[in-house]
C-alpha cells in the first residue's frame, strides 16, 4: 500500500481506493483535490481529511448529524452534477452520501461549517464542499453553545 508523510499523523499507509476526490478542490484550496479520510479510534467520532498533496493540510470534521441531527442538505444542481447525482432530488445522507461538517477550532470556541458541508458520494468517492446559499445554515455554527471553549 502507498504511504504518505503527514504533519499530524506521521507516515500513514492507505488504500488508493479510499481517497476522496474533489474535482474542483475546496474553496480556498482549489488545487487540493485528493484527501484521505483518517480516523483515529481514540478520536471518534471525529474524522480527519488529510490532503495527499500537502502534508500540512488537514481538516477536522464531524458527521453532520453529530452536529445537527435535523440537518437537511440543499446541494446546488452544479454540485449534484459533480457528485454524479440527478438534479431533481437531494441524495440521502448515510446511504448515498457521507456528509461532514468542517470544524474551526479557535480559542474563542469551536464552530462547525453547516453552510458548506463536505459531501462524498459513497459509491464513487467523488466529493464536493457544497456551499448552500439557499440554506439558512451558518458557516460558523457554535458546537458548544453553552459557551465552553475548546482551547
Amino acid at each position, binding site marked *: 500500500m502507498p504511504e504518505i508523510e503527514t*504533519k*499530524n*499523523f506521521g507516515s*500513514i499507509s*492507505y*488504500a488508493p481506493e*479510499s481517497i*476522496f476526490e474533489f474535482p474542483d478542490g*475546496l*474553496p*480556498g*484550496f482549489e488545487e487540493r483535490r485528493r484527501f*484521505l*479520510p*483518517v*480516523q*483515529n*479510534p*481514540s*478520536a*471518534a*467520532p*471525529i*474524522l*480527519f481529511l488529510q490532503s495527499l498533496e500537502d502534508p*500540512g*493540510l*488537514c*481538516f*477536522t470534521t*464531524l*458527521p*453532520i*448529524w*453529530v452536529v445537527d441531527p435535523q440537518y437537511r442538505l440543499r446541494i446546488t444542481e452544479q454540485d449534484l452534477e459533480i457528485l454524479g447525482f440527478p438534479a431533481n432530488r437531494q441524495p440521502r*445522507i*448515510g446511504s448515498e452520501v*457521507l*456528509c*461532514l461538517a*468542517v*470544524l*474551526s*477550532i*479557535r480559542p474563542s470556541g*469551536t464552530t462547525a*461549517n453547516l*453552510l*458548506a458541508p463536505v459531501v*462524498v458520494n459513497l459509491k464513487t*468517492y467523488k466529493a464536493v*464542499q457544497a*456551499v448552500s*446559499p439557499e440554506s439558512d445554515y451558518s*458557516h*460558523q455554527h457554535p*458546537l458548544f453553545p453553552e459557551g*465552553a471553549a*475548546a*482551547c
Partner: protein
Amino acid sequence: MLIMSRRQGETILIGNDIEIVIAHIGRSRVKVGIRAPRETMVVAQEVKMVGEENRAAAQAPSPAVLQILLSQLLPEAHTFPAADDEGDVRQDAGDKN
C-alpha cells in the same frame, strides 16, 4: 451603492470588459450572467466566506486541544463503545455517518 433597475434580458456594463446580464427573474431569485476577463475572480459571496473559513480550519488541532474537544463532545467518553481495532491510526472510508 449604485442601484439600477433592470428588466429581464437587460445588461449592465462595468468598465470596458465586464458585462452583467439579468438572465432570468424568478419569484425569489434572479439568474445573472456575467462576462468578465478570465483573470477577474467571480464567485458568490458565500464561496469567498467558506474559503476564508477553510483557511482558518486547515490545521488539525494539537493532541491537547483535541482531547479537550473530545471531552466536550463526549462528556461520558469512557462509556463510548471501544473501536474495533488495535488503536493505531487507520484510515477509514467514513462509514460512520
